[in-house]
Structure formats: C-alpha cells, structure tokens
C-alpha cells in the first residue's frame, strides 16, 4: 500500500538507524511530543534500534490524557441530566474523572454516545430536536477545526439544542512550559506532524531561538520517526537549533489556512488546565462570545469544573517526560487498562497504555 509500506521497510529503517548511530557522539535526550508517535516508537521498538546514548522521552501530546479530570466530572454531571445526550470521541469514554468515567456514567443510565466527528453530534441534534446534544470537544490543533465546523454548521442550521463543552488545547504553550521547567531534560523535539499539518510550524521558530533547541516536524511511520531523530541528532551534534520539516508530504509552513481560519472565527485563546501539568496560560480554546449560545459552560451554568485533586498517579510526570511509565510503582499492578488510575493508561495514545500493551509480558489469563 502506497505511503505505508515504504515507510515500514525493514532495510530502510536499519539504514537510518545506522546513520543515527554513526552521527551520535554523546548523550542526548529527545522528546516526541505526540502520543501517536509514542505508540509507533514503542510498538515498532524504534527506541531499541537506537544507540544507548540516545534517550527518547514521551511528551504530552495525547489529547485524551491531558484533558483535566474536572472536565470529565463536568461532562458526567451534564450527561446525567435526563434531557441531555452527551457525545464525544470513543477514546474519551474510559478516562476517569475524579468520580467516574463517561463509560461508567453510561452504564449507570446516562445517554452517552461515541461519535467519530463533532459533525455527527450536530446531525444527532438536528434529528432529535427534543434532546439537548452536547459535544465534549477535546484535543489539540488537529481536532479543533472540526469542532469549529460543528459550531458553524449548528449556527447555519439554526439549531437551538447543540452545544460544545470545549477543552481544546494548544501545543506550543505546553512546549514552552516544559522547557521553562527547572526539571526539564529535553534537548530536542520531534514536533507532532498532524498538529503541524493543521497549524503549520510558524510558532516554533521563536521557541527554537529562545530555548536554543532543535525542533523537527515529524510524521508517524517508523521511517518518519527515525528520520526525524536523525535530523534532530545532526542539529544537536552540530550545535544548531533550527526548525526542520521531516514530514513534508503532509505539512506546509503555514499549515491548513482554511482550518486555521475556522478555528480563529469560532474560538479565542484562553488559559487552560492540563491534567497533571496544571494551568498553562494561553494554551486553551474557548468559544467566542458571538457563539455563546453554543457554549455548554454557559448553557449549564450550574455545572462546575473542580480543580484537579492530588492522586498517586504519576501521569503528570509521564506527560512532561520526567518519568517513564514503567518507573511508576503502580504500573501494570494497581494500574491497568481495565482499572486505570490515570488517563495515560486508558487512551490509545497514552504512554502508559503503549508500555502496557507492547512492553510488558502478558499476564496469565
């Protein structure tokens, strides 16, 4: 299959891995930002193809993982109202809030539905005018455009029973937060290719300059990731801090202008809480006042978003690349995908789930 097979070719992968080994002369730590990349790395054992001096740490780019538990509490509270149908992405259903997950709310009787796109939720609202349809909108720059489109479509269709519970987040502010942290050990970034396909990588030049750090926009196939690492390692060895684009077949410098325009039309930037990382300024998207009637926070003003409580889950450190999943004392024991203590064990893009699935000898049945 084109665009897949050539990027999973064992011989080509070996050649790039050899080139990396020939380039590295000292220890470096590189973070892949996106959870999709984390999964590919762990699934294909890419980190095991690299020289020991090179360390990959996993970043915060799992949309489900960084959604704060308080938002899930709020979504469960809204979903428990008899007139409400709450829709969200399937991956979101199992993630625990403080009290329960949306799946548990559904098992308990709430009308919670999995949709593939927020536009499906708009369609559901149109077909069921007697229901209040709420879409729990999460994710990065990648999913924000379809949320924006959903609001624009709901407006065009004159729907009075559709609203968005927005918990969208933006990547560059989180990168700045990570780099400004005194415990930071990241020396180079593989930026998330899909995010950049939408948002472009204009914002990364200032980060690379300010923090003297190489940033390589990278795709998701094994060969993409290996090439991204090679470009990043070359920069580190040559003491450069540039922004490079490995994922040219999908990413342009300015991204997708139509998608960006839709996001800008519907949303404005605001401070946002991230699970395990606290509040990050200018890192979230809220509906503009012109679209207030589609804002679930305004439609259900009595619903509160509690601040995150302390738990023994180390997902905050995992998401910041400070610790790896298997360094958690609860990993695979108290915390499993069936009984997750944190979102990183639940989501298909979560680092803990990746380690559990691919890095752990299966338990006996």
């Amino acid at each position, binding site marked *: 299959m084109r665009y*897949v097979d050539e990027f*999973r070719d*064992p011989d080509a*992968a070996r050649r790039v891995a050899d080139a990396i080994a020939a380039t590295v002369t000292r220890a470096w730590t590189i973070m892949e930002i996106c959870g*999709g990349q984390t999964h590919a790395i762990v*699934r*294909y*054992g*890419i980190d095991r*193809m690299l020289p020991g001096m090179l360390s990959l740490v996993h970043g915060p780019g799992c*949309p489900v993982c960084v959604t704060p*538990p308080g938002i899930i509490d709020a979504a469960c509270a809204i979903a428990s109202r008899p007139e409400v149908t709450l829709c969200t*992405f*399937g*991956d*979101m*259903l*199992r993630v*625990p*809030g*403080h*009290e*329960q*997950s949306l*799946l*548990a709310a559904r*098992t*308990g009787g709430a009308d919670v539905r*999995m949709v*593939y796109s927020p536009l499906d939720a708009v369609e559901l609202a149109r077909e069921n005018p007697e229901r209040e349809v709420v879409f729990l909108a*999460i*994710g990065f720059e*990648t*999913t924000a455009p379809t949320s924006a489109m959903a609001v624009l479509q709901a407006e065009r269709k004159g729907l009075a029973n559709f609203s968005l519970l927005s918990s969208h987040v933006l990547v560059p502010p989180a990168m700045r937060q990570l780099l400004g942290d005194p415990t930071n050990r990241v020396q180079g970034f593989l930026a998330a290719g899909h*995010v950049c396909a939408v948002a472009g990588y204009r914002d990364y030049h200032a980060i690379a300059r300010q923090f003297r750090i190489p940033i390589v926009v990278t795709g998701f196939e*094994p060969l993409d990731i290996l090439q991204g690492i090679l470009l990043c390692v070359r920069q580190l060895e040559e003491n450069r801090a540039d922004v490079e684009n490995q994922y040219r077949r999908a990413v342009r410098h300015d991204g997708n202008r139509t998608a960006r325009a839709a996001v800008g039309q519907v949303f404005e930037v605001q401070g946002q809480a991230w699970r395990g990382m606290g509040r990050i300024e200018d890192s979230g998207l809220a509906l503009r006042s012109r679209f207030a009637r589609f804002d679930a926070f305004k439609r259900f003003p009595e619903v509160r978003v509690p601040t995150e409580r*302390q*738990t*023994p*889950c*180390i997902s*905050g*450190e995992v998401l910041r690349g400070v610790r790896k999943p298997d360094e*958690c*004392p*609860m990993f695979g024991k*108290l915390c*499993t*995908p*069936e*009984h997750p*203590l*944190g979102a990183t064990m639940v989501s*298909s*893009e979560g680092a803990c789930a990746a380690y559990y699935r*691919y890095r*752990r*000898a*299966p338990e006996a*049945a």
Partner: protein
Amino acid sequence: MTFRPASYGACPVPANSADRIEMAHGGGGKLTQRLIDTVFKPAFAFSEEDLTGDSAAIGRSGSELAFTTDAYVVQPLFFPGGNIGSLAIFGTVNDLAMSGARPLAVSAAFVIEEGFALADLIRIVETMRDAAAQAGVRVVAGDTKVVERGKADGVYIATSGVGEIGSRTPIRPQAVRAGDPVIVSGDIGRHGMAVMAARESLGFEPPIESDCAPLFGPVSALIDGGIELHCLRDCTRGGLATALIEIARCADVTIAIKQAKIRISDPVRGACEILGIDPLYVANEGRFTAIVAGGDADRALTILQRHDKAAAIIGVVCEREGRTDAKIETIGTTRALDLQTGEQLPRIC
C-alpha cells in the same frame, strides 16, 4: 509528585467496573475471559477440555458429535457482504468445522423487537436458508419471541449446531507442537471493518465486504488430503491475534508470526490506518488459522490456496518463552501480542 500509598483511596478509579456488565465483557478480550472464568465456568462445571475449543465433543463411542451454540447481536443488521442471518448460520457451522466436524443440523431462536419490519425479517430468513444450503446443513428447529419496542435492537438470533466429527485425531490446542507451521486461510479484517463502516456510515469506496462464509469446505479438504491437523480456530471476535493467543495459552507454547506474511486487502488496511485500528484484532467471519504437523506445511498451504489464493503461512509455533503467548516481527523488531482490553476504538487525531 511522589508516590504516597496513603492517598490511594483518592484515586479516580472508575466506579462501575466491579459490579456491572460493560460492553467489553462481550468483546472477546480479558473481560470476556474473566466473565467465563468467574461466572459461567463455576456454574456449569465446564471442564478445561470443554473450554479450549469452539465446540464440545459429546459422543462416547463410535462416531463423535460436536455441539456448539452462539448468539448474534450485530448492528447494523445488514452490511455489505451479508446480514445477521448469514452470520448466525456460518458462525455456528464454522464453530463445528473448527472441531473437524461436518455440520448436520442447526436450530435457530429469534428474539424480535415489536415493530420490526416483516420484510426485513423475511430477507434475513431467506439469507439463512441460502447460507444453510451453501453450508450443507438444515435448520431443523426454531423458536420465536417478540419483546416490547425498545427491549431489543431489531432482532437477535441464537443458533445451535450439531456436527459429526470426521477427523481421526482430535483437533485441539493441546495437539500443537513446537515447529508446527501457522497458516491463515485468507486475508484478514474484512468482516469487522465492513460492519464498522456500515454502522458508522464511513463511506469507504469501494465498500469493504464482509468475508462471512462457511469453512467446512476447506477444512474437509485438509482432512481428505490426509493433513495432520493439530488445531483449527476461526478468527472471529478478537481477530487473528486473539485466536493465536488463546491457542498458545492452551498449548503452553509461544506462537511467532511475521507481519509481512499476513495478507490484508488494501481497502481494509486503508480503513484500519485511517481509524487507528489494528487489523490483527478485527473480527473475521470466513477465515481460520490452521496449525498442522511440520511436515505437512506445504501440502496444507496448497490445499488452502485452492479455496483462497491469499492463504499463507504466517509463522511458526515455538517452545514457550516465559509469559509470551504470541509475538510478531514488524520492521526487524519483534513485540509480544496480548489480548486487547475493551473494545477497539477509533483514534482521535
């Protein structure tokens, strides 16, 4: 943040998982296994032998009978390549075929929702008639119940089947030996992706068709060809990976397969790539894995390729390696395969 055991009680543990049935209890993965182990096995005193195959042998002397039962709740009821009726027949006769049994008779029970269109019921029943003819089996007993609107999702069908075991040696996981080749009877992932595409109105072009088909034909060809069959397993719920893991656990071996050898059609691969779904875990309704004696590998493959050119040897049975049930080689690296937890859900971005 450091680990503080004292605060464990404050963790956001989902409150539901302990005491209610979740969707994943029907998914064929870990929770299904746990349900069988903790609820059904103690109640019905199944032996380990009963639980290792898709059907149970019930004869005592002379020709042995195989008996199996299954319930069908697919949504949507109609999908490219079949409907709930063809599944209900093929699913049950295929469970018999996996014991090397020629299907003799099938019963069918219908739970129908009030208000269900008679025309749809007729379509389903006619499909069952044709499927039974194709599989060489008669539907000899049935039952019909109607429940109030909202109490069922259109129609549910439960079928049971009896078959006559034709192989001379028992076909079961315990017969599997290190060195045995692992063969798959065709390309994988069609049924699950066809149903998902139909359910979610994902307009793949061309549409992906279910592979649902009777399997006794190729199985009997293997038996008639004198192939020493060690284990057969249809790759239904949970897909090829789950079938291999279950066999490996029963046989106390490790099964090693190669990604490059597994055939997946481009439409199925494309759909799986888009949705972030692993085709190894996607259901099939007309594919099985055959583990045969080492010396019979090439002959068995030739026989199976007469039925489906995409049949392939995808790996080999190895001595048990610690806790690893099955492993797969991809880009020159190898990883363990595990039962999946819960349903496979499409990725977000």
